[in-house]
């Protein structure tokens, strides 16, 4: 059912609103000249798109650089986002025409069409007197010679990249029918140092790997961070004082609070979608079960009681269910239960072991690590159907979903004494795989929602 949604949205692009309501065909039938990116087949035939530098009304020097340079950088970031999605083929820089300011809202359709762009993204940048930038973003169909969408953003100088991500989201959602994901952030563990004593620091970055900053100094092992839905807090595991337990980091204040106290090992924290709870795993006398605790602290509640290792939980988007892994059957397998721990049902039955399940924000899929003939990132439905492997590395692990449920970030480790871990992303086709340009190595990515701040 949910897989159908993007298709209906695609159809809506092509037909008058009244007809779109009744569009039930399994695949959209593009009208000649209509602009559609097929998210299944688009990987093999990405849409030609042009994103020329955004002109400025007046070249003004800002803390983020002169506005004409910003116009070029904005176009570069938009181009990068669209290219990385695998669904677009941006024109190379050398083929981009210069856009005079007056032309930003009156494009040279025939010129761009002749250059191979079926879609065109134009805009402008203007420095305001109060320390902000205004960025305009326009999407055009060069064949039908019409505007498809427009947005404007006013942001502080230092946040100019967000205008580009928002513009790219507008283009992506309008042309694919999928949800946005470019204006989002990822919390992860930055890794440096030798394999036997890796230095690990909490780090926060934009989804494209830029704007990174470190939140901890590396003196203590930190693992498995997770962002709250409101993006104000990060829950993670810290070995502070050699007592591995869960802490909550408040992003605005930088304050860290121990959440689970007086236990020998609490780990694998996950926020509930409403932010009220943190699901976690706790080991007591060698037995690990799932618990939940109010995210502001308080008394925990036990959710599972099996004698095996129950860990790696993840909430369904509506918060009503939890998928987790357990070796109660003898090896790691995936189970789904109600959020209060009732009605536990096994959903994975294939060969090998299944770990680190992550419920898609769209609700339709569960991503996991599959161990067996290597470590793979795979997907299946919440009832265990349609199992499909997306990656095949030496050791791919710990998938986390983009806000639109179409892209997955994970970490890939290489072998040997000089082996390192790095962040990668892959889309649901399994074809569009790429490494994130983090400044150092990285692991344990957790992809946050679309920014609303």
């Amino acid at each position: 059912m949910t897989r159908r949604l993007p298709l209906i949205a695609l159809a809506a692009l092509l037909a008058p609103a009244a007809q779109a309501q009744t569009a039930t065909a399994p695949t959209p039938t593009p009208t000649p000249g209509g602009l559609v990116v097929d998210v299944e087949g688009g990987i093999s035939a990405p849409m030609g798109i042009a994103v020329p530098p955004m002109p400025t009304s007046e070249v003004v020097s800002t803390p983020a650089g002169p506005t004409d340079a910003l116009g070029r950088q904005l176009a570069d970031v938009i181009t990068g986002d669209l290219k990385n999605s695998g669904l677009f083929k941006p024109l190379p820089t050398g083929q981009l025409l210069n856009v005079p300011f007056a032309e930003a809202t009156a494009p040279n359709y025939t010129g761009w069409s002749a250059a191979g762009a079926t879609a065109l993204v134009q805009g402008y940048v203007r420095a305001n007197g109060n320390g902000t930038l205004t960025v305009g973003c326009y999407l055009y169909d060069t064949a039908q010679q019409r505007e498809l969408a427009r947005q404007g953003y006013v942001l502080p100088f230092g946040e100019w990249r967000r205008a580009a991500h928002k513009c790219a989201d507008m283009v992506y959602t309008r042309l694919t029918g999928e949800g946005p994901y470019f204006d989002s952030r990822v919390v992860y563990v930055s890794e440096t140092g030798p394999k036997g004593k890796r230095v690990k620091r909490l780090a926060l970055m934009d989804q494209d790997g830029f704007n990174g900053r470190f939140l901890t100094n590396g003196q203590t092992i930190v693992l498995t961070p997770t962002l709250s839905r409101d993006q104000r807090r990060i829950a993670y595991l810290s070995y502070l004082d050699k007592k591995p337990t869960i802490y909550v980091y408040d992003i605005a204040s930088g304050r860290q609070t121990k959440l689970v106290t007086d236990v020998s090992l609490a780990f694998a924290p996950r926020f509930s979608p409403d932010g009220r709870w943190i699901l976690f795993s706790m080991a007591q006398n060698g037995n690990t079960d799932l618990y939940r605790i109010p995210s502001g602290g308080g008394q925990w509640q036990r959710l599972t009681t099996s004698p095996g290792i129950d860990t790696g939980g993840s909430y369904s988007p509506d918060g009503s269910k939890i998928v987790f892994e357990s070796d109660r059957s003898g090896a790691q397998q995936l189970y789904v239960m109600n959020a209060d721990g009732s009605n536990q049902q096994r959903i994975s039955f294939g060969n090998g072991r299944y770990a680190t399940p992550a419920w898609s924000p769209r609700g339709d899929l569960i991503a996991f690590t599959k161990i067996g003939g290597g470590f793979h990132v795979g997907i299946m439905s919440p009832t265990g159907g349609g199992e499909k492997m997306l990656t095949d590395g030496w050791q791919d692990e710990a998938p986390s979903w983009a806000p639109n449920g179409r892209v997955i970030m994970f970490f890939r480790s290489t072998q040997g004494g000089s082996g390192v871990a790095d962040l990668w992303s892959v889309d649901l086709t399994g074809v569009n795989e790429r490494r994130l340009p983090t400044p150092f190595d990285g692991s344990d990515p957790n992809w946050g929602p679309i920014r609303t701040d």
Partner: protein
Amino acid sequence: MATTTTKLILLAALATTAGCASKRPKVLPPTAGETPVDPNAGANNGVGAVIPGSPQDFQRSVMSDTIHFALDMYDIDAASRSILDTQATWLLKWPDRRITIEGHADERGTREYNLALGDRRANAAKNYLAAKGINPARITTISYGKERPIALGSDEASWAQNRRAVTIVLQ
């Protein structure tokens, strides 16, 4: 008092000798390009200077501070029992000494599962020592999962070394 001290020195000497004769090396020779840190470095500085009951004394007195586990297992096998028995003997002799047991896993597992597995291994060692009469209140455990490998290769021999529980006497 004098005889006790003599006995201790003798015991220590015996343990050292026995170690030379039969004990497998705690750390296999490093492969080219790798320089693992010797966890016992400094333990033998000045043979006569080791204080009875000290962490150094523990190192000299036991067959090993480390036991190993099979893939995805946490049971205490015969080799591990022999090692833990010597640890229990020392701990019974020094009833005011507290220990922590570190549980570790090899790299071929997911991070969170390996944390739980390391905890299982540390607790298996703890439970064995408790069964040998050591008050469990003297024993804390900590799991490092796959975060602190001692052998850095990605091969069966390295993984076998990393699946371990290490007993550390607290200062």
